[in-house]
């Protein structure tokens, strides 16, 4: 039972861009509510310029992150899982508060999120073995194909599953060497915001994951049309018309687009979320005689 003489510490959270926690450039905030519509906290209301800054930070981080060994990226993602485990109780509270889930249900969602990170961490140095190949060719060449990260990936996080859904779309993108700009679930931003505190204290370099909180309809068109974004995951778009418009905008620079689809986040995923943001590079290497 909280001490009634104590005043609530009301929080105003910020964005997570380039490893730092800036306020929205616009200075705006909005109220995040719990499942019953009560005040939880103030979250930053990101503008198009915050989206631009986040893409810039992601682009800057891409060269270093994609050049790391897959093994090292796996270790870093595993480290995120460790840090999440350490703050498990806080996440259980926030997931239960945002999604209106029972403590037991929330606990299983947080556990699944941690397991999901560990699962993807394990794939970091294996994905190239599975989808890469050495190709038989009709000539004196050693010919092989390797998956490479596509670049900056914009992600619209699922609105229903505020933590597990978020982890399930972000982890597969970064583990293969992409950098990410993610727009957190509009109505339930709190677990995403707390996750940024986890990311900031893991070994993840600044800018690899950038988290915006704000309105889907306001921010996503700017991400979809941004010429420096290489792929966009529309997982969190539940409005078919908006999804179509975003896909049209994304076509300008031939972004890879992952259309929204029905997902059960609790189910063990397949490889598709890792593979869609990879490009295959084939090298012909002359063999000496």
């Amino acid at each position: 039972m909280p001490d009634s003489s104590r005043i609530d510490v009301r929080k105003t959270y910020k964005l997570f861009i380039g490893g730092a926690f800036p306020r929205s450039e616009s200075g705006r905030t909005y109220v995040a509510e719990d499942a019953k519509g009560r005040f939880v906290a103030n979250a930053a209301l990101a503008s198009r310029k915050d989206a631009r800054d986040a893409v810039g930070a992601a682009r800057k981080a891409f060269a270093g992150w994609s050049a790391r060994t897959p093994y090292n990226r796996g270790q870093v993602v595993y480290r995120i899982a460790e840090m999440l485990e350490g703050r498990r109780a806080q996440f259980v509270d926030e997931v239960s508060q945002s999604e209106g889930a029972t403590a037991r249900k929330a606990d299983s969602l947080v556990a699944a999120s941690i397991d999901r990170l560990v699962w993807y961490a394990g794939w970091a140095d294996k994905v190239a073995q599975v989808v890469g190949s050495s190709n038989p060719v009709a000539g004196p060449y050693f010919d092989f194909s390797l998956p490479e990260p596509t670049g900056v990936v914009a992600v619209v996080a699922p609105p229903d599953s505020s933590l597990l859904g978020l982890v399930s779309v972000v982890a597969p993108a970064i583990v293969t060497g992409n950098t990410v700009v993610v727009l957190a679930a509009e109505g339930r931003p709190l677990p995403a915001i707390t996750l940024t505190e986890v990311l900031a204290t893991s070994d993840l370099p600044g800018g690899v994951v950038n988290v915006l909180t704000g309105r889907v309809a306001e921010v996503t068109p700017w991400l979809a049309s941004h010429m420096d974004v290489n792929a966009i995951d529309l997982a969190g778009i539940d409005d078919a018309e908006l999804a179509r418009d975003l896909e049209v905008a994304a076509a300008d620079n031939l972004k890879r687009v992952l259309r929204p689809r029905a997902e059960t986040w609790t189910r063990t995923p397949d490889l598709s979320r890792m593979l869609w943001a990879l490009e295959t590079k084939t090298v012909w290497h002359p063999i000496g005689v």
Partner: protein
Amino acid sequence: MGVSGETYTDGVTSVLPTTAGVDEATRSESSLRRFLHGLPGVDQVGAEARAASLATRSIKTTAKSWAIDLAISMIDLTTLEGQDTPGKVRALCAKAKAPDPADPTCPQVAAICVYPDMVPIAKQALGSSGIRVASVATAFPSGRAALDIKLADTADAVAAGADEIDMVIDRGAFLSGRYQAVFDEIVAIKEAAARPEGADKGSAHLKVILETGELVTYDNVRRASWLAMLAGADFIKTSTGKIQPAATLPVTLVMLEAVRDFRDTTGRQVGVKPAGGIRTSKDAIRNLVLVNETAGDDWLDPDWFRIGASSLLNDLLMQRTKISTGRYSGPDYFTLD
């Protein structure tokens, strides 16, 4: 030294040297020192506060488009590296002529700034485009060489076809108070920058680099500005780009005040060129605001204000593309240089 007070539209009262004071200044070494040390001191806190407050001006929509195009047309596109090659200089010249190949309405830059040995290549690549070739000279960037070597360096660049000479002052002499030596050197370089008989356009434009990062105080920046202008500089330039800090806003503010006061006193207009550290469109637009509010719109012209930069151009082009297409652009769509 005689002074007269005058109040400007920005509310700053400036104490100007008189015409008689200026004439007297160049008569002897001691009168030059007396003149320079008699210049009013710069209020450091005031200058920084004024530059910071002007930097908060918000320039949007059509004014922003205009400012971006003006900034592009004021750029001295620069490459001053030991690893420069003829190929790199030619590529830079191509970019100077058509900064955005996808958009013919994009203005040309003002000039290409290179080392003297690259002048003939730049001259040939630019042809009749009207873009000037500026060459650094006088043992750039340190300025530590004997006078005859500096003169030969300058004459060499002019003979190769340079339209503008960017010289560095001897900071060692300036900081130890040998103002006359600095003055005489600038005068000598100005003479060396004269074209041979019969050539067009008279002498090459002389830009004097003060290297404000080594001058330490704003008072020194003001003195060096006046010294260079008295000696006949056509432009005063902040920095070589090789020393940090380079072109900060307060330094540019002090120099703009100096050229404004110099024109009020002598009637001769001198240009200003901040160089080094201006990398974003926002920085460039802040500089233009500073020009307009300090020296006035007579200086808002590529003939009187230049920006020495290399990476700035891409940022301006990205902003330009954002305005014309309505979506954010990326560095992938512009040349690496």
